[in-house]
């Protein structure tokens, strides 16, 4: 009976990062300094359109930075996790771990 609605981990889940694909994007970007659009698409096995849509949401939320360059006369898009993006990923994973701990049998609280 110690928990309050404010302290419930479900309330810490962020609408933007909780989405599975977006969480995957942040996870891949957290392991690199910069990653190309194509490499990210291949890692997540997504279509260009699908990835673009999710990237736009993350960029608008200030979690991902997009840099467009020309390499060997070809356009290339580099993606980078911002400091807020790194914080958001950590917070999201922590909240999910806490939520799971609550939901596991034997650890459930009223």
């Amino acid at each position, binding site marked *: 009976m110690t928990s309050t609605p404010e302290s419930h981990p479900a309330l810490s889940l962020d609408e933007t990062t909780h989405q*599975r694909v977006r*969480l*995957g994007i942040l*996870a*891949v970007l*957290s*392991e*690199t*300094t*910069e*990653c*190309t659009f*194509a*490499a*990210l698409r291949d*890692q*997540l096995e997504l279509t260009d359109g699908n990835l673009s849509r999710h990237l736009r949401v993350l960029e608008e939320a200030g979690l991902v930075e997009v840099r467009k360059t020309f*390499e060997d006369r070809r356009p290339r898009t*580099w993606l980078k996790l911002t400091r807020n993006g790194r914080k958001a990923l950590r917070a999201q*994973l922590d909240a*999910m*771990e806490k*939520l*799971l701990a609550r*939901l*596991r049998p034997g650890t459930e609280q009223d």
Partner: protein
Amino acid sequence: MDDLAEKTLADIRQLRARSRRLAHGGAWLPALLLAALVLVSMLLYRSPFGEPPAVPDFDTPDAGWWRHPFWAGLPAGSHSDVSAYLFWFVGLPLTVIVTGAWYRWRGSRLGMKIAWPWYAGVTCAVLALLAIIAAVPTRSVTPPFQAGWSGLLTPLVAVAVAAIALGVVERSLGLIVGGAWLGLIAGWNCALGVGELPGWLAWLLDGGDGSALGGQLTLFGLHRPGPVLILMTLPLLSVGLLGWWRARKVTR
């Protein structure tokens, strides 16, 4: 919901591990380059493996003696202080340049970059710092006196810091441990003398008997620069070769 959240977390962990393997799978080359640089520095010494002449030839300048700072790396007779100085101050930046080219090529091919400029910056800064501190006028140390803490003014410490910086950038515990090991062995040999043991350790190894005046470790020739340099690069070589083996399997 429980199962879904658990599966999502497991998938994310797997995805991160896969991305890490891919993005950080190139550390083997710089690790081997740093180890190779240290091993090649054996050529700077007059007697890397053999015993030096019991009585140095005082008529020949520098024969058998060494000066502080130890520009060859370890306090042992080198062919030429200038060659040793040039070896490290050209060799280490060259290693950094080759490493940078490797990471640029790899990043462009894979579409994943790592923070290698940070490694390059730290390595060059430590090397520059070594040159600046070593230029401070001081009393020279000649055998049989021990250099003490000032013995840490050796290019080997710069290599150790470079390996640790690379380990941080590559998130590799093996590289961090390898760099710390290299620094520890270099620090010990440069502060006390090659293979020299402090009194308390010699006393302890003797089973608590006898005097505590210190001693010299001659096991596997660890009182000569060659075996000491091999010993200090063993973890870096292991990390590099293991990484190369893994990268080979991934690209097949």
